[in-house]
């Protein structure tokens, strides 16, 4: 039986629980787990104050309940599986290095910020700064995969240096802003100012978009490599029809203010 943490008491103010991570919960029995510290606002509390702990870690942790005030779940994790049932608070999987997080619900801001490896699957929507850097830093995620089935808000993939972000729904403003490299695929629509300041990297949308004046139209073609990506995400459960697989994409180069080595691809037909 995998280890299950079920929320029994909703926190009044945010709980910071980076301790909910396979690295930290491994090899502990139920009572030791319950006694692990979390911060409830400024008060040091225990996991047991909020969660009913059942089972033994067998490579997988399940967390259940309305976790929208629980922050930092899975932050920094290096291995194992973390399955979250319910909406979850900020900084989910921040700085994650490996392993897998699956969220059946929505996640708040800064999910997967500065991630270096592993995979996060979000079945609902994501907040702002999905897979971004933390303030002041010029580098966001440097690896790993962030798979969102719903929508994402502003600054998805901000300053991303490597890795893959897939957004099944729409993204809002500044998708891939200051991107250094990597790939962002938005199956829905994007907001404005996509790719502002990007140096390298790819941003793909299946819809038209208003682009900044510093992006230059190159051609309409069907990039072979896209077939690899689309095939890959198809296997992850996204609907990709053949028209998209073999279709034509507008290629826009930018941002000319920076290196001008990035590309925005917009599906045409």
């Amino acid at each position: 039986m995998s280890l299950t943490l079920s929320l029994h008491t909703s926190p009044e103010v945010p709980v910071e629980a980076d301790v909910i991570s396979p690295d930290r919960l491994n090899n502990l029995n139920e009572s030791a787990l319950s006694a692990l510290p979390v911060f409830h606002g400024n008060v040091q509390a225990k996991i047991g104050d909020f969660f009913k702990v059942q089972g033994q870690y067998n490579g997988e942790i399940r967390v259940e309940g309305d976790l929208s005030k629980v922050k930092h779940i899975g932050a920094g994790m290096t291995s194992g599986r973390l399955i979250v049932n319910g909406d979850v608070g900020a900084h989910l999987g921040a700085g994650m290095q490996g392993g897998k997080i699956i969220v059946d619900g929505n996640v708040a801001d800064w999910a997967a910020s500065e991630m270096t490896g592993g995979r996060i699957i979000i079945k609902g929507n994501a907040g702002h700064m999905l897979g971004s850097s933390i303030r002041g830093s010029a580098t966001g995620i440097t690896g790993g995969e962030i798979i969102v089935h719903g929508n994402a808000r502003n600054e998805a993939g901000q300053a991303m240096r490597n890795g893959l972000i897939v957004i099944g729904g729409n993204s809002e403003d500044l998708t891939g802003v200051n991107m250094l490299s990597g790939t962002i695929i938005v199956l829905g629509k994007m907001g404005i100012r996509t790719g502002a300041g990007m140096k390298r990297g790819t941003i793909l949308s299946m819809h038209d978009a208003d682009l900044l004046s510093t992006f230059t139209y190159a051609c309409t073609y069907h990039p072979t490599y896209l077939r690899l990506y689309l095939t890959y995400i198809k296997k992850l459960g996204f609907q990709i029809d053949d028209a998209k697989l073999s279709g034509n994409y507008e290629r826009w180069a930018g941002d000319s203010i920076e290196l001008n080595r990035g590309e925005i691809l917009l599906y045409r037909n």
Partner: protein
Amino acid sequence: MVSATRIVNGKVYDPINNIDGVIRDICIEDGRIVESVPDSATRIEAQGMVIMPGGVDIHCHIAGPKVNAGRKLMPEDHRKDPYPGTAVTRSGSGGIVPSTFTTGYRYATMGYTTAMEAAVPPLSARHTLEELHDTPVIDKGFYVLLANNIFLQNLIKEGRQEEFQQAVAWWMNATRAYTPKLVNPGGDEPWKGKRNTNVHDIDEKVDGISPRQIIEAFVIAADKMNLPHPAHIHCNNLGHSGNYRTTLETMRTAGDKRLHIAHIQFNCYGGEVGKQPASKAAEIIEYINQHPNITCDVGQVMFGNALSMTADAPLAYMLRGINKNKWVNADTECESGCGIVPFTYQGHVYTHTLQWAIGLELFLLTENPWQVILSTDHPNGGSFMNYPKLIRLLMDRGFRRQEIARVNQKAIAKTMISDLDREYSLYEIAIITRAGPARALGLKNKGHLGPGADADITIHDEMEDKEMMFNAPRYVLKSGVHIIADHEFREDHTGRLLHITPEYDQKIEEVIQPFFESYYSVQFENYPIDKSYMHDNEVISTGST
């Protein structure tokens, strides 16, 4: 009130009093070292430990507008290095530019009890004092930037040396500073007024004045006023290949008068502008060896994160061109410029290794350690937190060889660092970190453990690994207060402001005021700093001419 303390059985290193590792008691009363104390005094057992005066940092950047701008610029750096509070200390954040509280506590943690902020525009002196007030434990002062002050330059241009000296004295009083600081003299006007150019030669005239004229004027004024610490200069062409000539000329300009060259490592480069940088440490140190009127601090570069923050705005812009990192420029009207760029020194990079080796050469080639003071020009060459490691590099030849083997060998081959076998003794370390800077600063009560000295004392477990040893003294006493005992903070302390009040003829205000009213954006009457900002302070006497 602080009770009396007697430290017993420790090995004392006190170069000013010629004490080299002698076991003797140190007695403390009312914050000062005394001949003896009653038996009731608190005893500190220091068997197997080394006792030294508290460290004195003659050149660092720890408070004021550019430091705070650097702090604000780096949230990503603070985040990785939080500094929790304790029952007696405030919390803060660390990183390359720590918060004020963390700065004070971390200096104390390393056994440093005095530090001098090295570059403050007069207009921001008030700000600096406010930060220094929140910088705990250490005594502190600051050097005020006057070399690019347009009013003063005008007096020099017009040959009004006497009024110039009066005006400098007025400014020292108005700002509560410790000494005049010269940064890239003559370089501000080309930067601000001529589309970001610079002055390239000590004799190049911009708007009718050359750097040499400015340097000369300050050297003479400081000498005449008998300032405890002479003019403190950041030379022209800092950081550029071939600049050792400028440095030699700057030192020659002083003749036999006192002059302090700041972070001289950055000014010891051979080659031509923009190419073939090479070490000229030997040439520079030879001049210093023959000229006891010169002191310098090294400005050692340490590998890892640094933050270039300087009143030399063109220099920061040049660095920004290298790494394209975030860049701050900040002009202060009529007085100064400023540039800030995050920087990382990397062992595999040729020039960085060259800089690192040149710094070590300077230390190892000096014949008189009293003239060559330990600094990293924090945070320009690296954090002051690197001092223990730097001490180990000087004291431990084996460790130095190990470190040399890890860096760019092409650069190493261009220096003589591999051939220098010198190892610093504890006595010499006490000179370059304590006694030397105190003497250079004219702080008669600091840097030694004789009666009358401030009871700023560090007690270290004697250890083979000198980095460990200097990283964490077991006891730190500041003005006799037991700040740290058994490596734990036991008390907080505010520290004092050290400043000078040279006399001047009040008539000079009549000369300054019209200029001020035309070109400054604050009122003349609101410019000098009133007593409310002084808190604990000590005036260091300038003595009479």
